[in-house]
């Protein structure tokens, strides 16, 4: 970049420079990746500086784009359609058609763009410390940078091909990052499993894109001048009343299969906990804002296709909601039987993604997107806290039962951040999770899906309970194992401190920043405080108005400017065929916030926390060998401040009643199902494929097909062998044969002529 004059620096702020050039956000990290790969090892900081700087540049671009988008929305006023900023360039051509690559920046894009760039920056900073001295430090930063670039490219994509590109690049990078320590076979198997499971879902994406392209291309080309890959074109087409209901159903289901694979929804969620084999910053990035969110983003991005295809807001429940509901419950139940702190968080992610999907499936688009936003902060914070613990307190162990406990005294910042994020995750007022999760549950109920609302509330109960258990095991009680200063092995060689201590500034700073956001990010759409607080709705939700399109703008840029709109409140979009225009988003309802409903869900959460706290304290405290005999009274004393009475009774209930029924058979059964049945099916399929492959290869290919080839060769050879003796090698014999033949021929000739 050349130096800019002062006026030129100012000008971008005026004319939406950041919006026009948001495409740089994925491009800069991509260039960063190439630079790290080529020169990283020779740089003073081994390439990490390139990674951090390039992703920070993306963050600046994303922030600028977000700010200018907000201005753009403000300029458009309350009722008008805010057209996305689209720029395209020709990418490839086929059959005389030219296909473009480009950016599509709207409210959803800027929100996710900002979140991804923000979390990526923090995670990279965190990794500077966390992976210091790692044997593949440079490669790690290269892969991490490309990973973020992939997600940013997917978010910004104008067309499904670029979307697919970003999607697959993330898959590749997750393979590299999960298998970062690939010397250990378990890690590389986990990486393989992640890539392969996601790739299985990707068949749906390939099929879905293909179906949509051919179904929509003609309509989008003639009506909007866009190809059938264009997200904008597909959105309008899906709501135009044009699509054949079977075709769009097939496309939506196919795309949803891809989303299931990527976002770890039931039944393809099994790869997610295994993906914990990667370094903790990777888990954090993967589970908060990138990769697993991609599936949810796909549904949110192509929402009109799913809306029409799966009949969202229709009278019956749809596929998305059913899958999401199952996911919420089974994943939350699984989190109870984990001893690995990262696995608890992994299942929690699966469950939370279920909430997002549930919201999307039930027509609560905005709460779902908002949940992407808030969840990213508190989940990243939780993972980074877990990493901080393993880095500084538990000698690289993630085992809550063996190597943690009582850490709150040693790690005040980490503990505070963890607690805040846990409360946010549980949905406690006024932390961020409350505003998004409660909105989802509220809107699911508001749209008439009572059963799914109950599932959501049940999920909230389970979430509160398992997070309380994990918190207790990690931070409360007596220190155990490594946390108590015992050196199980010589892992702790890199730090000279004996015993647990707080991590360095490069680790605690990102955690602290995320913790602050975990508290306050909910205020961006604080429905309880009145409509004026609903910023996210104003900025993000596409307005369901009928738009009359006219083409303008210079060559190479297709700017679609609305020239007329209908009203906002009584939009026909999504329910009937728009006349004299197109719709880009369906009309959705927003449930009215009521404290009575919110208090109910808050009560459920608090009951969950309370029950879990008491049971955890009793159970895990009592098992401490130094407390044998005094267990009951001491456990109560240490647990402290809540319920003192009925402890005996609760302990009994816990052992015989709740644990043995819910946490015992139920969760273990679910886990068993997960490990044995689902994974078993996966392994079974793999084994059968191998067997079939062997049979096909050995019996059909080598024996039958190749056998036929060899048989024809043998036949030729046999004929040759049988006539071989004639070839005696003696001139005399040949001469005799020659003359004999000539004589016979002459005889025949004579006979024939007479």
């Amino acid at each position, binding site marked *: 970049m050349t130096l800019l004059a002062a006026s030129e620096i100012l000008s971008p702020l005026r004319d939406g420079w950041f919006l026009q050039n948001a495409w740089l956000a994925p491009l800069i990290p991509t260039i960063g990746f190439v630079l790290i790969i080529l020169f990283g090892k020779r740089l003073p900081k081994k390439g990490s500086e390139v990674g951090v700087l390039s992703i920070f540049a993306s963050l600046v671009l994303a922030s600028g784009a977000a700010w200018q988008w907000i201005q753009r929305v403000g300029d458009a006023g309350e009722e008008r359609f805010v057209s996305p900023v689209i720029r395209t360039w020709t990418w490839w051509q*086929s059959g*005389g058609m030219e296909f473009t690559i480009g950016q599509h920046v709207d409210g959803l894009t800027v929100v996710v763009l900002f979140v991804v760039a923000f979390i990526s920056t923090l995670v990279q900073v965190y990794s500077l410390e966390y992976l210091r001295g790692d044997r593949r430090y440079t490669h790690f930063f290269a892969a991490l940078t490309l990973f973020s670039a992939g997600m940013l490219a997917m978010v910004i994509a104008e067309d499904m091909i670029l979307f697919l590109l970003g999607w697959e690049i993330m898959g590749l990078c997750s393979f590299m990052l999960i298998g970062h320590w690939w010397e250990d076979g378990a890690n590389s198997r986990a990486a393989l499993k992640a890539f392969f499971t996601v790739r299985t879902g990707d068949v749906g994406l390939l099929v879905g894109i*293909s179906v949509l392209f051919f179904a929509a291309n003609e309509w989008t080309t003639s009506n909007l001048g866009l190809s059938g890959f264009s997200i904008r074109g597909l959105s309008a087409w899906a709501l135009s009343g044009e699509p054949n209901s079977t075709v769009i159903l097939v496309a939506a289901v196919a795309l949803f299969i891809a989303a299931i694979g990527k976002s770890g929804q039931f039944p393809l969620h099994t790869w997610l906990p295994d993906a914990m084999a990667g370094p903790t910053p990777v888990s954090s990035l993967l589970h908060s804002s990138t990769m697993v969110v991609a599936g949810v983003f796909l549904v949110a991005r192509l929402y009109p296709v799913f809306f029409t295809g799966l009949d969202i807001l229709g009278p019956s429940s749809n596929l998305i909601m059913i899958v999401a509901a199952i996911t919420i419950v089974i994943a939350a139940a699984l989190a109870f039987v984990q001893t690995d702190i990262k696995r608890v968080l992994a299942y929690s992610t699966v469950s939370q993604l279920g909430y997002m999907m549930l919201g999307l499936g039930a027509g609560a688009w905005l709460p779902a997107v908002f949940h992407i936003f808030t969840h990213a902060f508190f989940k990243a914070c939780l993972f980074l806290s877990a990493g901080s613990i393993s880095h500084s307190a538990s000698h690289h162990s993630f085992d809550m039962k063996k190597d943690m406990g009582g850490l709150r005294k040693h790690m005040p910042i980490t503990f505070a951040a963890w607690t805040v994020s846990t409360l946010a995750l549980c949905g406690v007022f006024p932390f961020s999770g409350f505003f998004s999760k409660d909105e989802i549950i509220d809107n699911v109920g508001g749209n008439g899906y009572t059963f799914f609302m109950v599932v959501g509330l049940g999920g909230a109960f389970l979430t509160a309970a398992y997070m309380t258990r994990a918190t207790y095991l990690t931070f409360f009680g007596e220190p155990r194992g490594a946390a108590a200063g015992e050196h199980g092995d010589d892992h702790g060689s890199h730090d000279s401190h004996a015993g647990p201590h707080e991590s360095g500034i490069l680790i605690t700073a990102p955690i602290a920043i995320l913790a602050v956001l975990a508290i306050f990010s909910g205020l961006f759409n604080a429905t309880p405080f009145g409509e004026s607080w609903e910023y996210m709705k104003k900025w993000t939700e596409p307005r369901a108005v009928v738009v009359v399109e006219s083409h303008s703008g210079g060559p190479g840029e297709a700017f679609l400017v609305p020239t007329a709109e209908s009203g906002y409140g009584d939009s026909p979009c999504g329910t009937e065929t728009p006349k004299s225009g197109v719709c880009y988003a369906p009309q959705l309802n927003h449930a009215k916030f009521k404290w009575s409903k919110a208090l109910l869900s808050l009560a459920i959460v608090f009951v969950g926390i309370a029950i879990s706290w008491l049971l955890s304290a009793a159970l895990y405290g009592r098992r401490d060998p130094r407390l044998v005999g005094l267990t009951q009274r001491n456990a109560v004393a240490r647990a402290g401040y809540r319920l003192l009475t009925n402890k005996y009774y609760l302990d009994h209930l816990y052992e015989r009643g709740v644990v043995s029924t819910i946490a015992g058979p139920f969760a273990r059964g679910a886990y068993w199902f997960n490990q044995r049945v689902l994974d078993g099916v996966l392994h079974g399929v793999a084994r059968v494929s191998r067997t079939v492959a062997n049979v096909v290869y050995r019996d059909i290919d080598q024996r039958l097909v190749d056998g036929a080839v060899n048989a024809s060769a043998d036949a030729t050879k046999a004929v040759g062998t049988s006539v071989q003796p004639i070839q005696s090698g003696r001139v005399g014999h040949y001469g005799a044969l020659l003359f004999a033949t000539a004589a016979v021929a002459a005889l025949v000739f004579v006979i024939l002529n007479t």
Partner: protein
Amino acid sequence: MQMIRDNNWVLSVGTFLPMLGVIALLVTPKANEAAIKMVALLTSVATVIIGIFTLVNFDFDQAGAMQFVAQTDWIPVIKSTYFIGVDGISLPLYLLSMVVTLLVVIYSLDHIPSPGNPKAFFILMLILQTGMAGTFIAQDLILFFVFFELVLLPMYFMIGVWGGEQRQYASLKFFLYTMFGSALMLVAFLAIFFKTGAESFAIPYLVENGGGIAKNVQVWIFAGMFIGFAVKVPMFPFHTWLPDAHTQAPTQGSVILAAILLKLGTYGFVRIAIPTLPDAAIEWAPWIGGLAVVGIIYGAFGCLAQTDMKRLIAFSSVAHMGFVMLGISTLTSFGVNAAVFGMVAHGLITGMLFFIAGSVKERYHTLEIAKLGGMLTQVPRLGWILGLCSMASLGLPGLAGFWGEFPAILSAYNPADGLNVSVYRTYMVIAALGTVFAAAYLLWLYQRTAFGTPKGHDHHDVHDVTTYEWVAWLPLLVAIVAFGVVPNLLFGVIDPAVQETLRAFGG
């Protein structure tokens, strides 16, 4: 079809220049290895320079037209002419053949396979180059046939002399199988010649007049061509020569075989069989598509069952060429574009994979997957290159393989008029499943060879990528990435020519 005759010497020079090198090599004494290598290198460099000249002078605005056309009498008795030219379909393949030969020559400077004799080796390679380049520019069936067959012999010797333990079996199988196909192909060529009035063997003439042949006759002629080309591709179930030939061939032979020779078959379909016999093509297309998707799945199964790295890569060719044939069988410009792109991409990627396999064999003295492991620790650069090529091979977007695979799947959703749509949509889903299998076998291979820890090899001859290897590989790696990121580099050239070729099907 429009013909542009400017600079019409350039193709002949480009094609026959290697023959000049062959003559020079014949008079070079056998003992002087340095001189032999220099002559071979200079010849192939000069050829590539001519190729670049061709590229620069190619009129990209008229990529659908035949360019650099030269036409003179050749064998007047049978009305065969020396008629050559390139269009957007031929050009990439023609240049690919030159570049790959150069890279293979560079690689061979340092890696003459046992039992040595570089003189004969380079002579065969240069003859091979003439045959390959000639096939892609020939616009006369007899000329095409001559070049097509010219390729066989050097490859036969290359496998038979410099090959592995079962080289004699493999080379004979390769030779006989392809000869068998060629014989039927020649009969088909003669049939179409006589059925169009015994006027000319020129392809443009046959494209004009071939459609007039009665449909049932067309179907039979197409059958002959089908077998000839399908063996070369190779399509299931004519593929069994391929794993043997690839496994036994020396590295250089495998690379050329994968990168160029397999494309002769698919090119034959696009250039000759389909445009000259449109009615028969419609009849045959569903069968071709069916065999293609069977090949995709079957090749993947074959890969999963392998224990030998090179054989696995060989089987993966069956699967990948299945995607190419699926694209062709749709008879749409979308599909054929994908197919031609897929040919180039497969040439680059699989050629590269065979290079790697050769280098692995050289270092570890085995290609048994079970005996390999930890390449990333021992030879990190080689390991990363293998990773990149595996990713490209499994069709990762942003790398060249994707643009052959995804549009081919896409095109199957909507085949040409007259083809059964639901059959093709079934093919589409099966082919899409094939991408999962591709991911499975390639990542499985990668996990077992590159990850983990090295398995007790003596370390002293295990070294990372050498300079010769870098020089030979970098152009391929750059091309894999460049075509992946900017696919229009190829699509822009291919597309007009494909549309011209498929005029009989209404685009």
